[in-house]
């Protein structure tokens, strides 16, 4: 089980439990925090979206991995307006970039367990839920390549970074699901 301060595991729960648990989990967070909700209830996508809208939280999207839905919510925010599209870099071009330049700043925004299983060697690890509090670790003048499993979470991370003045961002799409080059386990 992926467990971070901002992840709620609602897998295996039937309606209306994912919503009830989400409400409880989000109460403990601060405005602007991102909550990831894991669920297997197929109806939860529509429910979470409707619930977020009526409760004043932003629904950032859902990423599907196997039969697990990863819903992303931002507490007390209107829907994020994408003023600036984060440039997308296709995986193939990204692979070439990585091979050319080993010192590339790659930020993997997946959760701890996903990162531990396998990641690109030298990729920094800042889970999506910690982007806001840890963005000071990144250099605004550098090119930053954001990656997750499919490109969804890295896109959200990119928007958060762009809102805070980061300019040279690239969202790698798709992400680790189709990465076939060298990987590293653990930290």
């Amino acid at each position, binding site marked *: 089980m992926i467990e971070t301060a901002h992840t709620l595991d609602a897998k295996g729960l039937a*309606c*209306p*439990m994912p*919503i*009830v648990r*989400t409400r409880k989990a989000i109460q403990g967070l601060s405005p602007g925090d991102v909550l990831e909700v894991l669920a297997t209830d197929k109806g939860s996508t529509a429910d979470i979206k409707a619930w977020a809208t*009526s*409760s004043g939280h932003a629904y950032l999207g859902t990423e599907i991995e196997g039969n697990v839905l990863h819903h992303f919510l931002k507490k007390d925010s209107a829907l994020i307006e994408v003023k600036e599209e984060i440039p997308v870099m296709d995986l193939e071009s990204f692979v070439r970039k990585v091979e050319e330049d080993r010192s590339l700043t790659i930020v993997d925004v997946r959760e701890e367990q996903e990162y531990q299983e396998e990641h690109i060697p030298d990729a920094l690890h800042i889970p999506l839920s910690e982007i806001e509090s840890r963005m000071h670790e990144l250099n605004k003048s550098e090119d930053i390549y954001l990656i997750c499993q499919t490109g969804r979470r890295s896109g959200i991370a990119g928007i958060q970074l762009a809102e805070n003045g980061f300019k040279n961002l690239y969202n790698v799409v798709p992400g680790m699901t189709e990465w076939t080059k060298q990987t590293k386990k653990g930290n």
Partner: protein
Amino acid sequence: MTTRTAIIAANGELFDAYKVFNIATAAAASEHEVTIFFTFEGLNLIHKQASANLPLPEGKEHFAEGFKNANVPAIPELIAMSQELGVKFIACQMTMDVMGLEVDAFVDGIEVGGAVTFLEFAKEADVTLTF
């Protein structure tokens, strides 16, 4: 303005209980102010013993397995959760008199009232449902 949801529970089988408590908890989790008026067979849904052993409709007994497989919470859990979320339960006094039931036969924290008690709440409701 808080959204208000008024529910009448008038039937006492397992399906009825899920309809009532699922909608009630979902509404409460969406910050609605929720009141359920339990009348006639609906009183089974908050009866201490009966609520834990509600029957499936005749001929639908095979759904018992489906409930188990879908990992649906048991009715007593949904009752507790509803109350935790602030859902108000009103048991119908008249039905209790007809059935010879006292308030201590029901789960804790309920109110007893008549039709007018419910109507006072329901007249300002945004959502009104009958099960």
